[in-house]
């Protein structure tokens, strides 16, 4: 059954998700809670829209002269002893981190939450090099124990019911636990703390770099980010090449907006601004701080006017929470590292030839709720339309489906064809509604609608169109 006419892999995964009651409920409950939080925080803040304008401008300004801004940041960071590396793709990024781990003789890498690490599949690379990777963010650790992928960019385990988490922990620790958050979090904390102290390497992401000071900033609610970046002797931060602002003042807008957009919190519990390794005499901080700046398909978007603004994303997840599609099926249905509207846009852009990612442009009703929620006002709905155009241009979308849409669109341009086609279609629909042999045949001839009509009562299709009624309406005057 071809719904999208592309690979239908999304449709299959969405169907799978829709069949899981607990998953659907868990996802909707969480997205509702998060977007309500965001709505309350934005109403309370008063100047929320002005902040959005300011952050949008700051991010676009930095993206607009990315090379200059990056160089300025790097010069200042290096002056403070930060070791900066550049990786063009996932492979290079992993090689760099593995290289550092080897040089340090590390056997254990403690990790803070990083979507970029998921994207480049760093854990697999580390394990392949005999370095154990330990996720220390509670959600990420659960995902790691379960051998899954995060289903949300800020709450990796939205899809997982508590009972399943307890079972995972029980299997891990071999002792019975209860479903209480306190007990589960306590178990994780005890286990993870012990490990922290063994880790020779700490690996984190980077929420934003600040060119003015040569710093990188980490936002976290659990405090594990702080431990990962200070306790091990070597800290490696993975940074998307586009994650930078020019000034501390620009960064201040992010501090206000990121937590409010993501969860509705006024502030993130821990905001760490790191400007270099520990200096001589300082007790805190790593001996070495490496920042691996990863491109992996990002700078290619600089030249694409249709999609360039997507580089302004601050990965807050608000567009996921606002999205009716994401809220209905959760993140795994997308089959990509980044789900939701932002995922449907950037995943195809990171790999332009990947047909399976390309179909995600269809995973949207184009309601625009993502754009409305986005702190940096990325027009995701317009980008999804442009991606659909790219698909159509490349003949993606199934030759039949595309040809049918094309014929319909062209018929629309010729009034008498439009009129005649309308009459025939309405008759057919009326026949179908009337049931009987002929009706079934008429329905069967429109397989695209068959699935839909299994879930919707047919509308009362009128005999005459408005244009057929117009002359009578004129006489009413």
């Amino acid at each position, binding site marked *: 059954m071809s719904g999208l006419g592309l690979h239908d892999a999304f*449709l299959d995964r969405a169907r799978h998700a829709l069949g899981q009651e607990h998953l659907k409920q868990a996802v909707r409950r969480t997205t509702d809670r998060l977007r309500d939080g965001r709505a309350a925080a934005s109403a309370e803040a008063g100047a929320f829209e002005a902040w959005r304008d300011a952050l949008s401008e700051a991010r676009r300004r930095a993206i607009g002269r990315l090379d200059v801004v990056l160089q300025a940041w790097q010069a200042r960071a290096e002056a403070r002893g930060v070791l900066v590396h550049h990786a063009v793709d996932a492979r290079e990024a992993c090689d760099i981190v593995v290289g550092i781990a080897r040089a340090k003789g590390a056997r254990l890498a403690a990790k803070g939450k990083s979507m970029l690490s998921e994207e480049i599949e760093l854990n697999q690379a580390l394990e392949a090099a005999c370095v154990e990777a330990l996720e220390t963010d509670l959600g990420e650790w659960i995902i790691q124990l379960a051998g899954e992928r995060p289903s949300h960019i800020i709450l990796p385990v939205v899809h997982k019911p508590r009972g399943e988490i307890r079972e995972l922990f029980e299997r891990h620790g071999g002792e019975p636990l209860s479903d209480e958050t306190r007990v589960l979090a306590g178990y994780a904390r005890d286990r993870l703390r012990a490990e922290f102290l063994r880790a020779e390497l700490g690996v984190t992401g980077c929420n934003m770099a600040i060119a003015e000071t040569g710093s990188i900033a980490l936002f976290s609610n659990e405090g594990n980010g702080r431990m990962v970046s200070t306790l091990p002797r070597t800290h490696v931060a993975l940074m998307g090449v586009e994650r930078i602002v020019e000034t501390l003042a620009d960064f201040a807008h992010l501090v206000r907006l990121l937590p409010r957009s993501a969860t509705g919190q006024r502030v993130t519990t821990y905001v760490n601004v790191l400007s270099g390794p520990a200096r001589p005499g300082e007790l805190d901080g790593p001996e070495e701080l490496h920042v691996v700046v990863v491109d992996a398909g990002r700078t290619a978007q600089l030249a694409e006017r249709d999609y360039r603004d997507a580089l302004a994303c601050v990965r807050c997840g608000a567009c996921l929470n606002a999205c009716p599609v994401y809220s*209905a099926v959760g993140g795994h249905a997308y089959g990509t590292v980044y789900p939701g509207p932002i995922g449907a846009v950037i995943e195809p852009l990171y790999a332009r030839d990947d047909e399976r990612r390309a179909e995600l442009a269809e995973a949207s*009703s184009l309601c625009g709720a993502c754009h409305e929620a986005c702190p940096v006002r990325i027009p995701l709905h317009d980008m999804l339309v442009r991606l659909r155009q790219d698909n159509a241009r490349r003949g993606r979308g199934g030759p039949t489906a595309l040809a049918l849409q094309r014929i319909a*669109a062209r018929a629309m341009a010729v009034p008498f064809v439009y009129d005649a086609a309308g009459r025939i279609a309405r008759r057919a629909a009326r026949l179908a509604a009337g049931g009987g042999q002929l009706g079934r045949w008429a329905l069967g001839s429109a397989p695209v609608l068959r*699935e839909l009509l299994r879930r919707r009562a047919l509308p009362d299709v009128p005999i005459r169109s408005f244009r057929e009624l*117009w002359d009578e*309406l004129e006489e009413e005057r």
Partner: protein
Amino acid sequence: MTERSEAVGARRRVALMVTCLVDQLAPEVGVAVVRVLRRQGVQVDFPRAQTCCGQAAWNGGLADEARALAERAIEIFEPYEAVVVPSGSCAGMVHHGYEEIFRDDAAWLARARALAAKTHEFSQYVVSVLGLVDLGAARDGTCAYHPSCHATRLLGLGDEPRRLLEAVRGLRIATLARAEDCCGFGGAFCAKLPELSDAIVGAKVSHLAQSGADTVVSSDVGCLLNIQGACKHRGLPIEALHIAQVLEGRKGGAA
């Protein structure tokens, strides 16, 4: 009341952009729009050459076809002093979509903008152009208002429909939880991903059921057909009406 209103609309002349969906599937909505506007003294023209604004093609990724339809629509409607559309979505297409379509063609962009400047969604036209809120309509019952995504987010339609509904005699307006949520129609989306569309409209239907409304009102026929079909399928006796149909009603009960 009526005299005053007629003075408001007198000497005004609009072209009705009826939209392909209303034309083919809900002509009674077009009829209601014409009657309501005429009652206010507005003269309504119906340019017969019109077909579709191009939105379906545009959202389907067919840029060339969409552009051809948009050019047609501009040519057909630009001679008129104002254009009224019984759809926030299609009005949104003229306002926002045409900007996208013609962004690299200054001449066409100027024409598109000139058209957008005089193109109004129906309730926008009544409230903001005619300056009317109370049209003397009456209806018994309780309605819930579903703001369509495109009306709100693409066109920027505000509280005009709500103000019009509040002025309808005998009509109560129920609180609809998460009213701003998409109904799952999305044009071809509902046919391409029917199960998903069903899950989304399911949430809308349960919020409607909880609202206690007997009628759901919107500015977009796409949403209404979708919601109506889902309600019927679930055996929920909720009627779906375009706002013009409510305003057309003079007596109690269904118009």
